[in-house]
């Protein structure tokens, strides 16, 4: 590039130079987007929202660390993970939108809280807010990425070619997320007395939300061959977590399950009190300027 005039290409306006672009059309180019015969489309959309909202809401939480991480290298790493999950969310919301006739932004910004399908683990405050700290953040990342990695590795065989392609692409990302979380879990578990105590407390913070990850939902039952039954992931994920906690010298918390609300939880659109504030912040500008283009 020429260093004499920083502005020289600014007026050109060609889009080819954008690193991000729309972010997903290229990643999945060539994938057949037709709906497989016999698939319940409403259920497929609901399922894409479940997995998409998990990624979107967790990404929103992780990006709260931006400029607040313990070290610059970690600031960059957490932003990377948030960006990966945001990318997964965009692909999944877009797929849901192909059934529902709405785009990714309409789904992210114009749905109300009861319409969000993410698990509670994604939405709770695990730091940098008062609900946690870096250790709780790592505990959540460890559990979430171990679970999602197991889920995506099975989802590669989905009868929906788009879901299969999203899973294939996401797998490498999630393997890195899990590795990053596992390394920090070991470092903190083994490091100092304080870090050990905080890491154990971080696990206790997120553990009541683990059970929900493995609860089979009616939508998943409807979508045989398309969706993954999360109950089938439990032993694999438990094995991974046990190996990491052993290496870190940490104790697996006793299984205390957060109670459901009249039998419902995140997958039914029933959330924790934190969710309303998260959405208020995320959605307010988009909703304040109807008809605006961004």
């Amino acid at each position, binding site marked *: *590039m020429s*260093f*004499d*005039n*920083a*502005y020289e*290409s*600014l*007026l050109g*306006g060609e889009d080819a*130079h*954008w*690193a*991000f672009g*729309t*972010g997903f059309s290229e990643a999945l180019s060539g994938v057949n987007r037709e709906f497989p015969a016999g698939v319940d489309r409403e259920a497929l959309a609901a399922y894409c929202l479940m997995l998409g909202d998990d990624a*979107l809401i967790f990404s*929103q939480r992780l*990006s709260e660390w*931006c*400029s*607040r*991480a*313990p*070290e*610059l*290298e*970690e*600031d*960059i790493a957490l*932003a*990377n993970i948030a*960006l990966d999950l*945001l*990318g997964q969310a*965009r692909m999944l*919301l877009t797929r849901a939108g192909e059934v529902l006739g709405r785009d*990714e*932004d309409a789904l*992210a*910004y114009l749905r109300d809280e009861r319409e969000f399908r993410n698990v509670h683990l994604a939405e709770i405050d695990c730091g940098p807010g008062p609900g946690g700290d*870096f250790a709780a953040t790592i505990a959540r990342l460890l559990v979430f990425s171990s679970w999602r990695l197991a889920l995506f590795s099975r989802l590669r065989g989905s009868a929906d070619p788009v879901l299969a392609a999203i899973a294939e692409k996401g797998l490498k990302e999630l393997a890195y997320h899990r590795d990053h979380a596992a390394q920090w879990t*070991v*470092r*903190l578990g*083994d*490091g*100092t007395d*304080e*870090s050990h105590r*905080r890491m154990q407390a971080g696990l206790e913070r997120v553990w009541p939300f683990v059970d929900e990850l493995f609860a089979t939902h009616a939508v998943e039952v409807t979508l045989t061959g398309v969706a993954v039954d999360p109950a089938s992931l439990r032993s694999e994920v438990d094995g991974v977590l046990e190996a990491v906690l052993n290496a870190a010298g940490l104790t697996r918390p006793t299984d205390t399950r957060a109670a459901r609300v009249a039998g419902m939880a995140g997958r039914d659109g029933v959330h924790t009190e934190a969710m309303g504030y998260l959405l208020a*912040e*995320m959605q307010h*500008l*988009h909703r304040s*300027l109807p*008809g*605006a*283009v*961004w």
Partner: protein
Amino acid sequence: MADDLERRFERTVQSEARIEPRDWMPDGYRKTLIRQIAQHAHSEIIGMQPEGNWISRAPSLRRKAILLAKVQDEAGHGLYLYSATETLGADREDLTLKLIEGRQKYSSIFNYPTLTFADVGVIGWLVDGAAICNQVPLCRTSYGPYARAMIRICKEESFHQRQGYELLMTMMRGTQQQRDMVQDSVNRWWWPSLMMFGPPDAESTNTEQSMAWRIKRDTNDELRQKFVNMSMPQAEALGVTFPDPELRWNDERGEYDFGQPDWDEFWQVVKGGGVCNEQRIAHRRKAHEDGAWVREAAVAHAAKHARKEGAA
């Protein structure tokens, strides 16, 4: 002997060759460089905050991804630059303490608040634009590691600048409310952007020696004029105006005439009286202090690991 070293240093600099970390250099040169590069690194790190302020509220998922990636790049720039100071014998932890104790400065522009999403675009266009004008000459600066870091940073900054400008172009094609938002943002950021080139040459203390050492390559006023000349066609293409009644083309000079920023406001903000000075430092200090136990744990773990390997 010392004279020989000094002569060789002078010759290297005069011939536009690079000084490398192992080369002899005068103490003043080393100190000036550490100060300048550290201030630049601090600016990148503090600069994450005003834009980071909008990540959680970005109005589309695409804009959220772009903004998060941009702020992440700024952390990366901070890292390259702290690494460049380490080649001169400085220490990142020590420089961070100097920043949060107010003993070293960062670019004063980041003490202004980001009040609307248009500010994200205007910062990309004008603030990153001014930064590029300041930084492009540094790609030829005499200290090798700094020059090489600046080449990479300038490439990324110019990409950020395009993103900012593209956001504004998009907003100007939107609703009247969005156009008003862009103009309001330009009105707030224009003068602070001009201040980024530093005080007028007649009042600038560091310029002369830095120019002789080829650490600095153009004067503040030269760069400011260049920035105005480049920005005007951009503003016209965008459909916004700059809040300067004296701004007009001068046929004789072949350049734009323009007014002077309010230098009293500039000094007030530099000296700590800006809207966000305290907030920016408090934010950085909290992140650093809250993270202390994590850094200690990482060091303790690495030390245990090294002992185990040594014993094996």
